[in-house]
């Protein structure tokens, strides 16, 4: 362009020399933005609006993956497809038989429950969404979905796959939505142990293979291999969906609480299709103040340690 040191035109765009004042102003601005964004929900509407603008970019970036997928479909031979079809049919049949059995059991169960006047369990209904194959950040636990508010998705919707709970919608644009996984450090989920109904909260750890259940009583009845299910407490997920399996329990002798770790059961976003389920309004957590803020968190109130943030990332 020009020899170094003769930047006659430099001041036109933000100068060749670093302006310390400008640095300070921009840094302050960035930090203010981050703080505002941390404040739950404050910038979500901004972000949801921005999703309109960024949707074409995502489409463009996911194009190679889409092409590969379509290409694979085009060249995969009939026989392989037929074999896969056959296998899927068989699976469908076996699961349907199982389902019939379960239904019969469920009816019997419902009759018993009716006798003791327990609440009925809601049938799971939801929207099928697909994960857009994009790398948002390999060390964070976020997903991009191909449906948005036009398809009825909203912030706080739960996401499940065939194996268990995956995460929650954190921001919904018209045709795309962000979701956070249950392993995100900002996520907390009320759970109960299927064996004995012990209730706790599973926090994300940032590690895709484990959730943490801190602050358990030292005498808690929990053992490795126990399955954790969702409860209706959070109001986000239908009760009884598998979440994780206890993988380790630490009972430190010098601490007041035990901590357990659990391995998530779902494929955590490696499945392309997810089911988005609506929050169950009538089962939500009781409104603690009924004035200031609506309970958006998924964590049960009255828990010893407040979650790092709550139910979802702002």
């Amino acid at each position, binding site marked *: 362009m020009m020899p170094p040191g003769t930047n006659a035109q430099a001041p036109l765009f933000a100068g060749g020399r670093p302006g310390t004042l400008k640095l300070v102003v*921009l840094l302050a601005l960035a930090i203010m933005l981050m703080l505002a964004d941390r404040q739950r929900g404050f910038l979500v509407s901004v972000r949801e609006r921005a999703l309109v603008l960024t949707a074409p970019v995502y489409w463009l970036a996911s194009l190679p993956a889409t092409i590969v997928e379509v290409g694979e479909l085009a060249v995969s031979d009939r026989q392989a497809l037929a074999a896969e079809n056959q296998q899927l049919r068989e699976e469908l049949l076996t699961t349907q038989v199982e389902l019939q059995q379960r239904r019969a059991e469920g009816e019997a169960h419902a009759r018993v429950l009716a006798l003791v006047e327990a609440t009925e369990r809601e049938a799971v209904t939801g929207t099928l969404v697909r994960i857009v194959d994009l790398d948002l950040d390999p060390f964070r636990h976020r997903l991009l979905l191909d449906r948005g508010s036009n398809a009825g998705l909203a912030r706080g919707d739960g996401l499940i796959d065939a194996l268990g709970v995956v995460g929650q919608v954190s921001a919904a644009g018209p045709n795309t939505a962000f979701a956070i996984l249950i392993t995100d450090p900002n996520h907390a989920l009320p759970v109960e142990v299927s064996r004995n109904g012990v209730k706790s909260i599973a926090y994300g750890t*940032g590690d895709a293979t484990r959730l943490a259940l801190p602050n358990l009583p030292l005498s808690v009845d929990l053992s490795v291999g126990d399955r954790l299910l969702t409860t209706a407490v959070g109001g986000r997920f239908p009760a009884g969906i598998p979440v994780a399996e206890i993988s380790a329990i630490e009972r430190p002798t010098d601490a007041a609480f035990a901590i357990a770790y659990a391995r998530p059961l779902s494929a955590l976003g490696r499945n392309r299709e997810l089911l988005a389920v609506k929050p169950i309004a009538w089962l939500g957590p009781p409104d603690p103040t009924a004035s200031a803020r609506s309970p958006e968190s998924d964590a049960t109130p009255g828990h010893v340690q407040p979650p790092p*943030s709550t139910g979802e990332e702002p």
Partner: protein
Amino acid sequence: MRPLRGTYRLFLLAAAIALLLTLVPMPTWLAVMKPMGLALVLAYFALEAPEVAGLGHAFLLGLVADVLYGGLLGEHALRMVILVFLTLRFRHRLRFFPIWQQAGAVFALLLNDRVLDLWIRMMSGSTWPPLLFWLSPVVGMAVWPWVFLLLDGLRLRRRQAQRDRGP
């Protein structure tokens, strides 16, 4: 002003491509060592054409990255502003380094960026990331010479073309 506008266009184009490439899905083992493309592009233009890559642009492009990657708003903006500031501060020295030495300096810049990233993560309640987290600056250093040569070639050719066309 024409060459400036040409460079400016190249800058925006390179930044857009870097932002897009970062999003393209990869196998997990590759994804974790993906270098921060935007950082490399910003470092190059801060070194070679500081009149287009100022702090303001670093901030705005960082914001675009934040919106695209769905992270904390302002996080990339902060990191990119600091990266460009440091590059500009040491620009006169860095420019006359041989390219391998420059790559070393870029490694330091990217490492610093990673530390900032970690700091922001910790503030927002994340746990310590796996060791692979630190691989990205190394890969960034390895690709820096190629990014540098590619962008240099494009920029010089563009200028050549403009000189041929213009008076």
